[in-house]
């Protein structure tokens, strides 16, 4: 596993740099805590971190699931109907001009401090990448495959479901891969704006009390979870949705 080795090497490099900065500048530990202290905090606060990480991960996973499903259905709708395309595409493009972060307070206002405002934020953030990469793939179906199915007497709906959708699954997979990286951002922003649980909430809390080590600990836990999630989804995509190109 070359990837793993490179990852470990890179991590070591970052740790060395981090420690070097502390030694050379003598920066206070409440500004930049040393790696060893952060490691110690992660271990000592493991119960607290686990509790909050579970909440954030629940938001991320539910958001991912719903956002991906929504993107899947929308892309098919867009690809199937020129009318839907003409109506919805400008809205989608315009929606990308709205800074998503600005929506977080409104979502909290509408949906409250619980899970749903964060899940919705996550859905909004991943919806576009999933929809657009799946849609693009659906529009790129080999014309000759469609022609073959037509000659066989297939209806447009069946061509969509039996030819275009399976042909476009690798495009859906690339959308998912992006979504996995974006999803935690949505959840964390949601938590920053208003929450009583989750890693984002914990970071703000720790920051406010100058517990920089705990903030770093939460950040690292979040990063590690994101990487694990990305790896898992990547594996899943490789096994199910990707396909080697036909030579």
């Amino acid at each position, binding site marked *: 596993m070359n990837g793993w080795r490179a990852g470990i090497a890179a991590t070591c490099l970052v740790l060395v740099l981090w420690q070097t900065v502390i030694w050379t500048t003598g920066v206070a530990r409440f500004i930049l805590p040393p790696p060893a202290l952060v490691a110690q905090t992660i271990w000592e606060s493991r119960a607290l971190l686990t509790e909050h990480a579970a909440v954030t991960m629940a938001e991320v996973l539910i958001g991912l699931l719903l956002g991906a499903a929504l993107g899947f259905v929308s892309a098919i709708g867009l690809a199937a109907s020129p009318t839907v395309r003409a109506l919805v595409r400008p809205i989608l493009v315009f929606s990308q001009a709205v800074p998503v972060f600005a929506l977080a307070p409104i979502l909290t206002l509408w949906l409250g401090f619980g899970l749903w405002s964060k899940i919705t934020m996550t859905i909004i953030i991943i919806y576009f990448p999933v929809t657009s990469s799946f849609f693009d793939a659906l529009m790129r179906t080999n014309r000759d495959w469609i022609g073959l199915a037509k000659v*066989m007497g297939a209806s447009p709906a069946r061509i969509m479901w039996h030819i275009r959708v399976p042909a476009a699954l690798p495009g859906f997979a690339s959308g998912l891969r992006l979504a996995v990286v974006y999803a935690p951002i949505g959840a964390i922003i949601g938590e920053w704006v208003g929450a009583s649980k989750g890693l984002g909430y914990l970071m703000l809390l720790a920051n406010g009390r100058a517990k920089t080590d705990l903030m770093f600990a939460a950040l690292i836990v979040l990063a590690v979870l994101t990487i694990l999630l990305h790896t898992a989804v990547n594996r899943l995509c490789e096994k199910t949705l990707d396909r080697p190109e036909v030579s």
Partner: protein
Amino acid sequence: MNQPLRMTGSAEIDGTPIFSQLDLTLTPHSWTCLLGASGVGKSTVLRLFAGLAEGVTFDGVLSDTGRVAMMAQQDLLMPWLSVLDNVMLGARVRGERPDKDRARERLVQVGLADHADKLPPALSGGQRQRVALARTLMEDRAIVLLDEPFSALDALTRAQMQELTADLLTGRTVLLVTHDPNEAARLGQKILIMTPSGLVEVAAPFTPIPRDIHAQDVLRTQTDLFDHLRRPI
């Protein structure tokens, strides 16, 4: 399906004429080969017969073909479906119950019985084209349209595929578009060259198909065809 299939008329794409005053008749239960320079409109004729000519404006008369089967230069196998499922693609996309036993028989006919569960990328180009042939046979249509189905194959595989296809499609009305005079001479029961000014018929051998590559009449027809194709229009 004993009426001759006829196409008479002109076609254009976006106002650019593709062919005009074409008069093409397919004899029922026999092979018609269509040759001609690249871009002269052979594939367009075939697509018109198949009802696939989007963007082509056809002005003329075209017999009703009913449902046809089609096979092209690319195998058009779905890479996510097994060989067997590719053979049964027609039933799948029409929402019919697929007949597995019949599909397996088709695979036996093309000599790929042992490859039923493989995915297309695991096959060679020649094997993939045989799967495409099995899929075409599975459709079981009276009219079969072939657009340079063997042109991507090596010479030996091509010769084998020609024989196999001729054997398995006997009795059907076949339109074969090809660039290969030898192929036309081996398989054509009627041979036509398409030119911008219309169709030119070249006498085909009378012997049954598939004809032997070295047969005298095949070689003679092949030479004839070369001469015709080279002749300035």
